[in-house]
């Protein structure tokens, strides 16, 4: 059974464990999510649970977004499909959702329309958190790859923060692909694996994980049980 939930990063703080040690934690407001769709082997070729988090106002949702969750929405196609005797797939019957993601894994124990709360992590030790990292724009190699740059003196002119050499000479007389250089940094999907769970607060729908999580405060995150062994 795939264990996971969608949520929002609230921010970081610190708490104390029994021995008085400080634990840095990220607070995630997780769920409640609705199961919108189940992907099955026969139909889709893989198994996954599609979750939706936060309601989207109806005036902002497109008709297809509404149709994705609404159990009864009249349309010409729906009428003709019904006339042909095709059974419509089950719908969640909730409001359209703002943030929709799939969790790959067994769909056992899930059904469409079911509500998923942060309680699913009660017996989980560690999680993987996926989010979009903070965008830093076009950044130099020093910031992006922690290069050292060049010397401040000894004849270095106007290239103190530049990359050094990028290749050899007549052989291979080209620069290898994938060489680390300046470029877009951040604003990319990023997963931090094996974050220990520091607390689950079912009442307030909060999840505390030890350590940092990618993205700004208020950013959407996907939290899954870790796939790291041991």
């Amino acid at each position, binding site marked *: 059974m795939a264990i996971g939930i969608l949520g929002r990063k*609230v*921010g970081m*703080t*610190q*708490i*104390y464990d029994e021995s*008085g040690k*400080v634990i840095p*934690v990220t607070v995630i*407001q997780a769920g409640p999510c609705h199961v919108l769709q189940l992907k099955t082997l026969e139909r889709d070729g893989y198994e996954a649970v599609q979750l939706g988090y936060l309601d989207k106002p109806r005036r902002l949702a497109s008709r297809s977004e509404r149709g994705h969750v609404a159990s009864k929405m009249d349309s010409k196609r729906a009428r003709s499909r019904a006339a042909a005797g095709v059974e419509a797939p089950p719908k969640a019957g909730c409001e359209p959702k703002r943030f929709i993601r799939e969790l790959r894994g067994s769909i056992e124990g899930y059904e469409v329309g079911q509500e998923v709360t942060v309680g699913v992590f009660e017996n989980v030790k560690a999680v993987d958190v996926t989010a979009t990292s903070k965008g830093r724009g076009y950044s130099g190699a020093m910031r992006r790859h922690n290069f050292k740059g060049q010397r401040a003196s000894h004849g270095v002119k106007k290239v103190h923060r530049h990359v050094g050499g990028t290749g050899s000479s007549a052989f291979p007389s080209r620069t290898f692909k994938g060489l680390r250089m300046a470029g877009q940094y951040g604003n990319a999907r990023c997963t931090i694996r094996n974050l220990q769970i520091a607390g689950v607060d079912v009442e307030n729908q909060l999840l505390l994980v030890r350590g940092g999580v990618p993205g700004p405060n208020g950013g959407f995150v996907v939290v899954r049980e870790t796939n790291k062994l041991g």
Partner: protein
Amino acid sequence: MSQQIIAKVEEKYLKAEKPEFEIGDTVDVHTRILEGDKERIQIFTGVVIARSGSGTREMFTVRRIVQGEGVERKFPLHSPRIAKIEVKRHGVVRRAKLYYLRDRVGKATRLKERRVKGEE
């Protein structure tokens, strides 16, 4: 909204009774120290020169002179390892951060005593 949520998370880790002291006070900080499996209390005495942060992250800095050398320790206010904070003496101060004490030696590091009504 997010600040309220964080405050809610921190609530149960805060000390029920927030230790009371002010900048410029001379305090005894009782810290629990684990030695092997034995616990003992160590006392650090000095002047509170700064306070920072809020919630569980609130810290305070205590400065004292040991063998002619200035020593500063920064403690988390709400840490369970801080057993007790005893105020020994109040000082007259006009700022929130007493970093100027770092540049002073000898007699110049003294603070005038502030008499508080209701005490003694």
